[in-house]
Every structure is written in C-alpha cells, then in structure tokens.
C-alpha cells in the first residue's frame, strides 16, 4: 500500500476573478521508505501539490490517499518541511526541533533528551540553546530538517530544503541528507529544481511541465546506493540527466 | 479736515477709512468674550477707537498668560482682576490697573438649592470645585471662619477646565462663579441656586474684578496713547450702561458663537453694575486696593506687601 497516493489531482486558483490553472490531472505515489523527487519549473505548482497533501488546499478534482486512507489528518502520516525554514525566531534550536513531536503531546523532557542525542548527526551540537537568528543558512536548514525528521511520521515532505544554499554547500548537504535518510528509513517526497540533485538522491523522479503542471516524465533511478558525490559524472547518471533535460526542454 | 491735503489720500478715503494711519492695539481678554467685555466691543464697533486713531484687535487669552503678556508689551492692554494684579506685582510683574470694569465683586459661591448651603459655615463637609488660584483656600477659610465654620472640613478639588454645571453634576457641591454669567445661565436653565456673594461674606473681598490693565512701561512712554484708548473704552461702557440690549447685540454681532439669550440676560444684569455707586465708570478706590492687598498679605498669599499706589491709577479716566 502506497504511503501517498494522488490520482488525477487538478487545481485552479481564482485570483481577482482571473482563473489560474495550476495542476492538471497529476497522478503520483510514494511507497514505504522510498525517496521520490518532484522536479519542475518555478511556479508550476509543486508547492501547491504539497499543500494538497497536507490538507492546506483542497483539490478541485482527484483523489488523495494517505497511508491508503481517505480523510486522515495529514499530520498523522506526513511531516512537512516548507520551502522557507520557518523556524520560530523566539524559540531556541532545541525548542524548535521538538515542535512537531510536542504537537502529538509527548512529554517535553523526553523529547528534549531524544533531540539532544541527535544533535551531532544534524551538526548542531553546541547550538541547542541558540536562537535561529544566530545560525548560518545551512544550520537553519539542518535544524528545520531535524524538526521534520523528529516528528517521526512515515513520510517526509521536503519542499526545496536545499534551495537557499549555495551550490557547494548544497552538494555537501545532499550527501548528508542521504545519511540521515538511511538512519531513519522514512519515505521522502522531495521537491527540487536541480536535475543533478533529483537524480543523486532519488529512487524515482517525477518531472512536471510548466503551469498547468502535468507529469511529463516518470523515471526510475536504479543507481546503486550508497551514492558518492562523484556519481554525478558517471555515464549512467548522465543518461538520466539528459532524459530529464529533454523533458524540461532546457537543451 | 486732516488728511485732505493730497488727492491720492482722498481717493483712499472715499472707499474705506484710511487704515494706514490707525495705530494697532491688542487687547487680551481674561476669558472667552462675555458681557464683562461689552464696552470694548461697542467702542470698536461704533468706530470710537478709530476716531482716536486706534485699530483694536481683541484677542482671547492663553491660560493664565494675559498679565505676563501685557507686562512684556505683547498686548498693550488686558483684562485681569485685582487679585491677579496684586499677585503679579508682588512677583515684580510690572502691570497697572487702569479701570475697574465693575464696581463691586459680583462673584461668589454657588451651589444647587438642594445642597442647602445658605450660609458659609454650611460649606463644612462639602466638596468645593476650585480652579487653581492661590487665594482660594484663604478666601474659603476666611469666609467660613467669619461664619463660625471649620475650614478643615471642606474638601477642595481642582475642576480645571470643566464648567460649573458639569462639575456640580456629580463630584462637586459648590464652586466659585461670576453671577453675571454662570448665575444668569442657571436662571436661564431654571436651575435653582444658592448664591453667597463674596462681598457680603467678607468686606475685604469686595475687590475689583475684572479690571483693565496695561504695563508700567507704556504708561511711562506714551500716556497719551493710554488716554486715547481709555477715552473710547469708557464711551463704550457708558453706552452699555445706557443701552443694555443694543450693547448686547453688538457683542453678539462680534461674537456670534455666544448664546443669545444668555448674553441678553447677562447684559441686563450687568449694565447697572458697571458704574453702580461710583462717580464715573472705571473709578478705583485706593481703600479697596489697600484693604485687599493687606488681607492677602495677612493670609500669606503674597511673598511681600505691595505698594498699592503703583498698582492702579485713575488718571486715564475722563472728566
């Protein structure tokens, strides 16, 4: 049974009376423990798709099943990391990362000690009591990811988690992300603009067209894991990259 | 006739009185224009100031600023009252009273009839609404003790800018008013008041209020100017004494914001009281000045006794 199953999802916004067709019959699914990427041009509707999964937006048409069920509160199945890091500036890093876990009513002290243990993995040791404003961009992203992972839901929805980082930091963070994923075994649904990143991380990649978004390519990435950075120059990698570039018409 | 020597001048004259020859004068009132000031408005409206070569601006005052402003010459004349002039002179503010607008003190303590304050000692255990004058407490003390009352039992409240009627609406039992304005308004409203006139409670308190003032400097430098001003002003008040209704209408014409009924009734009350028992309008009696200043000094309201002869003068009154 798929963790996330969306069928024929369609959404049109109306802005000041003007209709804006954003999603046009999108069908995607994410299986247990799988890493799936979604790639598409800016403004095509990727964040809207995530909002639909989370129940923040209702689709005009189509079906959304979470863990095989209709109508479950999204928060019980998915853990969402939006495009911005959205750390609460008035809470310390420690209090931020336990936010999702506290929502389900866990005891504070227990959650805190659990978070403390994971600080090294997320490279935040020593910053437990710092406020977000005191962190670098990369550290903020790691804290936001930690908050998402710590929710311990079956699926992580990551909306361009590395988008704000420079290319070099980003490459390092990709490898680290795979390590974290390996550790927690949650399914990941991952939005990105970056072709290399999508292939490097994923088991499968969906490519969307520009607005209104349709799935124009669905690709399995059968590259072996664990993956190292130099994989991006491997011929098998490049074949996939060419295919995606063609689908996105950037040649 | 003067000014007929040049044809250009004549042209001007045919269209309007030649304002270039008129000397500007500023008179600062003590309060909003009211029937105390009728004479000033009449004199201006009838052109008597212009006849003396004066162009008079009547300005409404700053809170407590009139005396200083007259002393510094920012206004040539002002409306004040004897207590204020005495205070000012004791603080070395060089102003001089040049006319008593009303011969006797028409102010006093007013309260609603049902409070039952018909004698000064009944002010005990009542709440008094004051306005921040330094002498209020002494006056109250004096008039109550004259009547065998205990001043210590009066509660004093500063009612600031609120008027008598709003004040007595809930928090105040009696206040100090001018009968000629507030008392008349009460009559208009059909409100029954007990009114204790100050001059009857304590003879020393029959002081002049209001008075016209000017500065020592002006009297020294330009007595003719003061004389001209006073000649026209006296004419104005004489007119108001003889023709209360006409005078009231002139005031209303100049200050249309006022309440017509109130002005008419007030003027009828006040007109006979301008001159009252005096030989001429404006007359000031040295005894009144000496008596009141002495009283104030006794009651420690003055840092030092003043020379009352310098505080007022009758020399600018006509005849």
């Amino acid at each position: 049974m798929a963790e996330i199953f969306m069928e024929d999802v369609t959404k049109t916004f109306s802005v000041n009376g003007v209709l804006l067709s954003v999603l046009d019959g999108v069908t995607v699914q994410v299986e247990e423990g799988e890493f799936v990427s979604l790639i598409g041009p800016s403004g095509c509707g990727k964040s809207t798709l995530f909002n639909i999964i989370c129940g923040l937006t209702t689709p005009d048409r189509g079906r959304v099943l979470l863990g095989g069920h209709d109508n479950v509160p999204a928060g019980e199945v998915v853990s969402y990391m939006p495009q911005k890091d959205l750390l609460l500036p008035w809470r310390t890093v420690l209090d931020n990362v336990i936010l999702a876990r506290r929502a389900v009513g866990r005891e504070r002290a227990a959650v805190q000690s659990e978070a403390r243990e994971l600080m090294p993995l997320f490279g935040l040791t020593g910053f437990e009591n710092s406020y977000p404003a005191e962190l670098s961009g990369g550290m903020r992203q790691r804290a936001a990811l930690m908050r998402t992972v710590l929710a311990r839901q079956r699926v992580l929805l990551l909306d361009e988690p590395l988008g704000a980082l420079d290319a070099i930091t980003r490459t390092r963070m990709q490898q680290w992300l795979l390590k974290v994923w390996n550790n927690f075994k949650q399914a990941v649904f991952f939005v990105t603009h970056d072709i290399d990143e999508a292939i490097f991380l994923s088991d499968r990649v969906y490519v969307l067209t520009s607005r209104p978004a349709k799935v124009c390519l669905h690709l399995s990435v059968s590259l072996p894991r664990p993956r190292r950075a130099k994989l991006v120059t491997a011929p098998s990698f490049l074949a996939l990259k060419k295919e995606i570039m063609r689908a996105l018409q950037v040649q | 006739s003067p000014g007929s020597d040049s044809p250009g001048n004549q042209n001007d004259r045919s269209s309007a009185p030649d304002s270039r020859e008129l000397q500007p004068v500023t008179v600062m009132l003590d309060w909003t224009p009211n029937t105390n000031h009728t004479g000033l408005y009449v004199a201006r409206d009838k052109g008597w100031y212009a006849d003396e070569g004066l162009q008079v601006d009547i300005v409404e005052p700053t809170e407590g600023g009139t005396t200083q402003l007259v002393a510094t010459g920012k206004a040539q004349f002002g409306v004040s009252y004897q207590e204020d002039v005495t205070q000012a002179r004791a603080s070395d503010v060089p102003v001089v009273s040049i006319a008593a607008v009303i011969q006797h003190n028409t102010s006093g303590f007013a309260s609603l009839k049902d409070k039952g304050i018909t004698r000064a000692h009944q002010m005990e255990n009542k709440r008094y609404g004051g306005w921040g004058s330094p002498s209020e407490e002494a006056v109250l003390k004096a008039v109550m003790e004259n009547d065998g009352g205990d001043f210590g039992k009066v509660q004093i409240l500063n009612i600031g800018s609120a008027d008598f009627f709003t004040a007595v609406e809930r928090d105040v039992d009696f206040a100090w008013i001018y009968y000629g304005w507030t008392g008349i308004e009460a009559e208009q409203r059909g409100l029954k008041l007990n009114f204790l006139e100050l001059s009857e409670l304590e003879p020393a308190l029959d002081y002049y209020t209001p008075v016209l003032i000017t500065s020592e400097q002006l009297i020294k430098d330009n007595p003719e100017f003061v004389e001209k001003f006073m000649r026209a002003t006296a004419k104005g008040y004489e007119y108001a004494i003889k023709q209360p209704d006409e005078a009231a209408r002139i005031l209303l014409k100049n200050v249309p914001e006022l309440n017509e009924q109130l002005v008419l009734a007030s003027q009828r009350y006040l007109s006979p009281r301008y001159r009252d028992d005096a030989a001429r309008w404006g007359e000031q009696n040295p005894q009144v000045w000496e008596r009141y200043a002495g009283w104030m000094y006794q009651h420690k309201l003055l840092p030092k006794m003043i020379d009352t002869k310098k505080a007022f003068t009758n020399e600018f009154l006509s005849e």
Partner: protein
Amino acid sequence: MSRLNQADRPVNMGDKLWPALFCLLAFFLAWEAGVRLLDIKPYILPALSQVLNTLGDMLPLLARHSQSTLLEAVTGLAAAVGVALVLAALMDLHPWIRQGIYPLLVVSQTVPIISIAPLFIIWFGYGILPKVVVVALVCFFPVVVSLVEGMQSADCDMVNLLRVMGYSRWQVIRLVRFPAALPSFFAGLKIAGTYSVMGAVIGEWLGAVNGLGVFMTRATHAYQLDRVFAAILIIILVSLLIYAVIELLAHLAMPWYYNERRDD
C-alpha cells in the same frame, strides 16, 4: 541570512548616550546663557540655575505630586495595553472588522481631548479615573496600531505549518502570532510610554487634587515660572523612567530579538 525584522527595530536610545548628553548640556548652557545675556525676566523664562534651585527646594512637594502622576500614567498605560489587546484581537479576527474599526480609530485621534473634557468629568468624576482614561486615550493608539501590524506580520506559512503538525487554533496564536507581534508591540509601547506622563498631566488639568498638573496650574497662577519649569523637568525624568522600564521589559521578554547573530 539577515537579522530578523531588522528594519523594524526602533532606534535604541540606550545605545550610545554620550552624544545625547553632550547635546543636552549644550542646550542647558544656551538656556542659562540666553537668560542671563538677554536679561529675560524670570516671569517669562527663568534661568536654568534658578529652576534647579527651586527644584531642590520643592523636591519633597514635587515628589508627592509626582507619585500621583506616575500612578495615573502607569495605570493609564496598563489600561491602554488592555484595551489595545482586546481591539487588536478583535481586528485580527476578520479583515472586515479591521477595515471597520481601524479608520475610526484614526479619526478618533483627530479629536482634541480638551474639547470633550466636560464629558469626561461627567462620566468619570474627579478621581483617578478620568486621568487614567485620558492617559489610555493618548496611549492606546500607538499600542493598538503596533499590535495589529505585529500580528499581521506573523508568517502565514508558519501558522499553516503548525496547523499541519496538529496544533489547535489557540495554540497557534500562543506559539506564533503572539510572539511575532512582540517586537512591534514593544516599539509601540515605548512611544505610548513616552506620552503617558504628558497624558496624565493633561488629565490633571481637567481637574484634580494632586499631581504635577495641579502643581503647574497653581504655580502658573502665582507667576512662579521657575516652579513650572521644575515640574517640566520632573515630567521629563518620569517619562524617561517609564521608557527605561519598558526597554528593560522588552529585553526580558524577547531575548531572541536582541541576541546578536554569531558566525558559524
């Protein structure tokens, strides 16, 4: 990543006091010298030295009057904050309510308080209440404006995120909207605090038994301008005191806002 809300930060009065003290000294010197050289009469503008002298002499009396005024100012400020909280919460409920109330609040600021003074007396009498009301009227506007703007500045996506996590509507208000409004709230409160003492003095001028306003009225009527100015100095000091206390509270309530960004 730049400092959160950097643009909103109020100019911090406590940052560097020396230039201000220098200017103040220059102003005082000019005052004293001006009065002496131009031979200005004490009933028009007393010399600073005379004012300070009087201030020293009258200190016990001034202290007593200041107590009433301070009490009114602080109570009024607290009332203003209360009213502002209620109004801001109301206006946060729906944009229509905001669009309905907000312009009326702006309009209400154009009415000169002194002209409706008699109503105040009738409604609230002569106790501490009318002064508290005047202070609250003077102070609530900056507080409510800053609160509304602060609450609006809360990130919608942050609210959504917490909703997805499973937090309730009220928990989200407590966790996000309220803290997000704090910096703006304190900025408004500082402005309000600066005006609160002046409000109390105006309130006393409407009628009072005690307080710096009463003291000033009496001194004015007795031509003791040195006392008036001594009272003004006290008003300034008390205002600064209130400002400093608010600044302190802001630091206590928002450590995250004042902490400096560390490099990683």
